[in-house]
């Protein structure tokens, strides 16, 4: 399989299942049978590493390396080096990561939803056109601009997916969500009103002074 087909959502899923490291080894740039497969792979893994860093997972657990099929010794070197690295970082959710188990697994669940979601997939797919021919307005992006756009989406999508994941379990108040997710409550409030605008969240009931919100079943 071409590394270009490695789905970031599967990567997140694998980590959620408890693996400690994942190494993606592709061909050298220029050697790709599908021409740009390895470029795409690199972009996808870079983005996934960004997201891992954001959620508090040591991003070194995921690596993208290159060698050709004839270079057995290089391959061995890459693998043993990676093996060393993962051993030094230690088990998932331990001292090597900013966010610990079991919390990290909840984060990874939301991360999987983010990576499986349409926004990130679509935008990552737009990387080459954006950098080379431009967006629908003909504006050509620099790498930096493209990365900024991805970062912005990662931050917001993560937060929104975490909120949605908690709401899927049970209806909740803004305060509860904020406490659970360590996001400032005023920010959660804004997300909730925005999700309401989109028809994805609605008021369930009011208990005492506290409005409780639930999903409408209209999520994408």
């Amino acid at each position, binding site marked *: 399989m071409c590394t270009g087909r490695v789905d970031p959502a599967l990567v997140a899923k694998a980590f959620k299942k408890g693996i400690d490291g994942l190494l993606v080894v592709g061909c050298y740039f220029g050697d790709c049978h599908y021409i740009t497969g390895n470029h795409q792979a690199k972009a996808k893994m870079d983005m996934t590493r960004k997201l891992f860093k*954001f959620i508090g997972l040591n991003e070194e657990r995921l690596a993208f390396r290159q060698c050709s099929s004839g270079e057995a010794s290089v391959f061995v070197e890459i693998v043993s080096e990676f093996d060393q690295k993962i051993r030094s970082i230690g088990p998932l959710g331990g001292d090597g990561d900013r966010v610990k188990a079991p919390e990290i697994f909840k984060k990874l669940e939301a991360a999987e939803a983010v990576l499986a979601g349409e926004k990130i997939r679509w*935008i990552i797919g737009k990387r080459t056109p954006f950098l080379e021919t431009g967006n629908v307005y003909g504006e050509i992006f620099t790498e930096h*601009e493209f990365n900024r756009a991805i970062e912005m989406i990662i931050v917001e999508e993560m937060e929104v997916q975490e909120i949605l994941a908690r709401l899927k379990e049970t209806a909740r108040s*803004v305060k509860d969500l904020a406490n659970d997710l360590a996001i400032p409550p005023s920010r*959660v*409030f804004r997300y909730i009103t925005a999700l309401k605008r989109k028809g994805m969240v609605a008021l369930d009931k009011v208990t005492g002074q506290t409005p409780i919100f639930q999903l409408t079943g209209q999520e994408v």
Partner: protein
Amino acid sequence: MIYEKNQRYIIPFDDVPSPRAEMPEISVDERRGNFVEVETGFPEDIAVQEAKRCLSCRRCLGCALCWAECESEAIDFSIPDEELDLEFDDVVVTKGQDNSFFPIDPKLGFGSYADVITDIQFERMLSPTGPTDGMVVSPLDGEIPKRMAIVQGHPNEDDDQLLSSLVLGVNESIIALDRTKDLEVILVSPINEVFKEQFLSNAEKISGLRIVKGDPESVEKDQEDAPLSLKYSENGRQQDDTFDLIVILTKPKISSEIKSLSRKLEKPVQ
């Protein structure tokens, strides 16, 4: 007027290096008696770091995802802007939808605390089509307030401003009290003659609302999630009280575009 018109919504991301780079200079001793350039320029690594701080501000990314999702094919990026030249016999200039207001004394906490909002924001919140469908909540934590204060943001303004903001404040209290169980509202503002004659007795009959003739002084809180503490003077006496939500009565400001149109057309803003 609040936020997006100023394009301020920013998402911080860890990867963005933080402090602004400083321009290196030669020392003062090296400057006397010569005209050598003082600023020596960024070295490459500093320049690249500094450039990476740029947020690449952009709203619509032009990614066309919305277009791909839209089944009725309503989205069309190629619809052009139009320029029209029209002639008229008469003009009426109104304020438009730009709800700008004059700056509020920073002591009143607007901009520092999420639970201090303006009367215009509160108007939106109370509206049935508003962000909470008309439910009164604190934007700080989404909880329904028990005690709220409506305070005058421009106590020393002219009669017109005082009157219209007071009436708005009372009207907003009427709606909020009607919508919210066990709510207490106090309205702190100087009161002028016209309001006293025309509205005060009716306003004082509203149950749950207390009108305080006085000047608001400051709004503070010790901790992000603590209630707001409002200091105000009532008949010269210093008062101190806590609230879950504070609404500031603002003074509307006409945007500079409308002002200059009104000047050019010699038509007052209605």
